[in-house]
């Protein structure tokens, strides 16, 4: 494989425990707990995960949570809206730092 990402590697995620089982197992136990139905439904959590996957630009997570969102009953409109939420926050986060840029520029300018 001549690229950094191989889709088949997603299925190997569990193997992370091979070199550090205690931490790995704790992570997976925590992970499973997080995605269980709680105050939020499993579908809502899948959509949050899908949005975050886009924000952190993780192709593994985009693959996994696109499938998971469909499985949990989300439709295309819900999934794309989740991506827009991620885009709005990412875009907004960049833009709001413009205030810092403006502050600094004003500080340095006559």
């Amino acid at each position, binding site marked *: 494989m001549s690229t950094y990402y191989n889709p088949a590697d997603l299925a190997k995620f569990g193997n992370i425990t091979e070199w550090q089982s205690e931490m790995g197992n704790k992570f997976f136990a925590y992970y499973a707990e997080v995605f269980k*139905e709680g105050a939020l*439904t*499993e*579908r809502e959590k899948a959509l949050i995960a899908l949005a975050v996957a886009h924000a952190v630009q993780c192709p593994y997570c985009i693959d996994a949570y696109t*499938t*998971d969102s*469909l*499985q*949990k*009953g989300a*439709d*295309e*409109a819900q999934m794309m809206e989740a991506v827009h939420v991620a885009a709005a926050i990412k875009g907004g986060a960049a833009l709001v730092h413009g205030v810092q840029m403006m502050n600094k520029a004003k500080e340095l300018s006559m």
Partner: protein
Amino acid sequence: MKSLQARQAPLADTAYQLTVLTQAEAVGAQLPAFAHRLRESGLLPLQPTKLGVMQINVGKMCNQVCKHCHVDAGPDRTEIMTRETMQLCLQALAQTDIPVVDLTGGAPEMNPDFRWLVEQISALGRQTIVRCNLTIIVANPKYHDLPEFFARHQVRVVSSLPHFSAGRTDAQRGDGVFGRSIRALQLLNAAGYGVEGSGLTLDLVYNPAGAFMPGSQVGLEREFKQRLGREHGIVFNNLLTITNLPVSRFLEYLLESGNYESYMQKLVAAYNPVAAANVMCRSTLSIGWDGQLYDCDFNQMLELPVASSVRHIRDFHEATLAGRAIVVNQHCYGCTAGAGSSCGGATT
């Protein structure tokens, strides 16, 4: 869209479907033989338990041509059960204490003897389930009174609705199907179906519109109830989640979309021995439009008859059939993945 048969597609040949299913087993190390997994679970040979359901497929004729249809049903299919064969089914039923008769198709209501059959089953004191595709109710004025007819005979209505959104439903079942299904559901509700205290059961069937498995039945049921209630004022009893099996038009979709191998791998990886012990073929007998006997509707569509000296409903003999081993193949992974899948929804 047309049926595989009308298009003379290679998969219209069941022998070819079986070749596709078993070749995958030979090429991919990750696709072990289903029988092998059953043996590891201590379930081979797979044996029947007490017969609880007689499932009668009254024909392949349908007003829809859904992309995932394992029957390859459609308006161009003419195979339907005759009243004589129905009579043989009723004679067999009368010899047993099987409590439930599950009528399927195609659209079972399109068989001209459908109503007669329901009346006879009622007269024998057994419960009828009808696998109603919903749109049939609004397809033609002669079907508009079906909800009242069902109610009169206390028929349990089990209806497919792949999603609570129009887009995902129409993608699987055809343009406009969602809107017509909603109208039909409203008519069923008006006849008392799904309404608390009416005693008239309306269950919906969710099966994924694509190459993925169904999510949790409980979670999806709540979601469907909220959305259908809020947006269309519809009530129903239970949501049954069903996994699509790689048979007929769904197999064609998997192959054409390049999803076949990964879908099979998903099913294999999700093999659940508890679901395997609860597969529906153990307590169901499936009868084809021509009276031939099968372990389930999927085996019927793959033309895999029961492994018994009794192969036709005219020769029905409960004890002989009880001694058979159920015929399994690679498609059976669909029934044993995750929470399990059957005509009654998840099995675990």
